[in-house]
């Protein structure tokens, strides 16, 4: 039944097959040149030991993968990535939720608040990274001085956990607005009749939020959790590069940064390719998860 309606819809919009194909072509071309071809090359490269110029190439089978799975630095990198992504996820969603709840409450100047909260999204990741690195630089950073004055021996250059906190802060700050806009939209979509009925029954704003707003936001939150994982795994390269360069001693060497360092600084193309293949598989799994479990539950027509 559903399938029939769908195909009916498609037929109604496009009578001729040529137009939709034509409209899709640019996007397909971009995917082909910037995604599929590089992916297949990476897949091929992962099975070779080669000099960067490609003049000496040895087939090594699964050696690159085997080496990765035995390597301590790779294990550390996986750990670091998981810890980073989970903490970043929790922090981002929590802050975004508070902000969304608060700006759903205010009436006057809501637009201004929204604009301010959305600003970090417009800032380039590198700039955001440098900003945070400077603010918390133990030698000159004003916020680091505050921490020192409080008696905390803050030093992200030496202490791995400090560096991790700094990267999480910078990455979350940059991503909060993304979660925020979804959550705010979700809250606005909560039927006001429900909220009003609860208010008449004497439920306060917090109670209403926790018993009505939050449960209705759950599909959105699940979607955001997946998006945050993707963000944490693939998109924080520039921030790590600017804030810590993966250090100290690999404490913030997340997988995507390691791929870059091994490929473009160490020129170890085989290992770097093998790492990207593993990341690619992970990305596929995330996409699958999202389509199978999330997409079905999120309804966009509220």
């Amino acid at each position: 039944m559903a399938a029939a309606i769908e195909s009916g819809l498609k037929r109604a919009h496009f009578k001729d097959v040529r137009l939709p194909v034509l409209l899709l072509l640019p996007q397909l071309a971009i995917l082909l040149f910037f995604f599929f071809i590089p992916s297949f090359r990476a897949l091929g490269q992962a099975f070779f030991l080669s000099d960067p110029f490609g003049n000496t190439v040895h087939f090594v089978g699964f050696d690159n993968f085997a080496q990765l799975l035995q390597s301590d630095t790779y294990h550390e990198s996986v750990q670091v990535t998981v810890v980073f992504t989970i903490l970043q996820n929790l922090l981002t969603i929590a802050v975004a939720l508070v902000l969304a709840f608060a700006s759903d409450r205010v009436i006057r100047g809501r637009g201004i608040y929204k604009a301010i909260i959305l600003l970090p999204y417009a800032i380039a990741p590198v700039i955001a990274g440098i900003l945070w690195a400077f603010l918390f630089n133990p030698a000159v950073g004003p916020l680091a001085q505050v921490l020192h004055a409080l008696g905390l021996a803050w030093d992200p250059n030496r202490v791995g956990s400090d560096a991790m906190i700094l990267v999480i802060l910078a990455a979350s700050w940059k991503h909060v607005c993304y979660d925020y806009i979804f959550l705010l939209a979700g809250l606005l979509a909560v039927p006001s009749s429900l909220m009003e009925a609860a208010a008449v029954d004497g439920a306060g704003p917090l109670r209403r939020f926790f018993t009505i707003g939050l449960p209705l936001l759950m599909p959105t939150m699940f979607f955001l959790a997946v998006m945050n994982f993707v963000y944490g795994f693939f998109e924080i390269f520039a921030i790590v590069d600017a804030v810590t360069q993966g250090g100290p001693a690999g404490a913030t060497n997340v997988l995507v940064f390691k791929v870059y360092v091994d490929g473009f600084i160490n020129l170890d193309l085989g290992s770097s390719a093998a790492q990207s293949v593993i990341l690619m598989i992970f990305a596929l799994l995330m996409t699958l998860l999202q389509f199978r479990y999330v997409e079905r539950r999120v309804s966009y027509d509220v």
Partner: protein
Amino acid sequence: MNIQRRSTLAMLALSSTLWLASATPAAAQPVQVQWWHAMGGALGERVEELVKNFNSSQNKYAVTAVYKGNYDEVINGTIAAYRAKRAPALVQIYERGFMTMLLSDATMPVQDLLDQRGFKVDWADFVKPVAGFYSYKGKLMTMPFNSSSPILWYNKAHFEKAGFAKPAETWQELEKQLYAIKQKGISACGSVLAGDYHWSLLENYSAINDLPYATKANGYQGLDTEFVYNNTSVVSQVARIKKWIDDDVMQIAGQGLSPEQLFTSGKCSTYFASTAAHSGIERESKIDWSATYLPWEEGKQPKNSTIGGASLWVMKGQKPAEYEAVAAFLDYLAKPETQFWWVKATGYVPLTNKAYELARSQGYYKDHATREIAILQLTRGTPTANSTGFHFGNFTQTMMAQRDEFQNVVAGKKTPQVAMDDAVKRGNEILRQYEKLNKGRY
């Protein structure tokens, strides 16, 4: 006449002049070659000037200098371009990339090129540690360009206030001085850790103190070289740095701040960094600074230091006319006058003895004494197998592993001995990988 019509006419006029320009006889056209480099900021302006000087010195060739980002970005760009068969004629590659370029089968030895094209370059006249680093089987493979060596920069006022004429010659004495400066409250930090400390404080430390860094004459005699710096006083050197950092005698600038700023602002009293820092320090510094040789271990006779920086590689696959242009440009670069100009403009060391003599005879070093330190240090004594230089495959990768382990020491997660053992172990695995790839080719 409306605007659209006018712009169409302008386009027509423009394209016809372009057409005319391209239609002029080929003989009058200089041969164009591209040179990719990594010199940003003020150094980039000097490179532009250098190319302009060469282009106006004759009319047969025209070199275009293209800034391609930092050293990593230039080598990556070169690799990508080479694989796409569009490599530029000339590329500037950092010294750590020597083996990668040498065995890549993508380059042409400069000495062969210039000899074949009939340029009379006095190859024996190149400063030994410079030529030594870039030679293979007695032949210069790549044209040395911006060569430097680390020196010890210091804040004169801080040392005088503490009652010292200048920094001591040995690490032991210098340590006492830095602690005294700290205790007397003269400066917040005795020294600042440079970004390339592995080069100045570990590699050059080994060369100057005549310590083996790896077997096979630091890789000069074979790809089966193995790191051994975990068995030398490099370990106690790492322990010393760690102690300085713990006692707040040395600071790490960290991300968001350049170490050089901590020195030039007068916050830190010393700075172990390249002689190429001259251009920056002279411009920015508000302090009364000077510089001297890198320290050595007590009781040792110091050897020469080794170089860093980059050289110019000629890529394969160019047309004969382009090779001629490249050869002419490299010949121009090697001339003492060009060298002297470059030395004055940047702070890098002169590459040939003739250029050095020219600078001295003109009294340049009388007014710029600190600029002579690096070359004096590079040419000090006779180089041994430990001080000639470092020829390691995947050198950047082994260095990154070493830095990683060094950070483990600073973070207090490993002792210096364990960390250097691990660095050597990781480094050797990387060397074996390179050996496997290039078996029988060195």
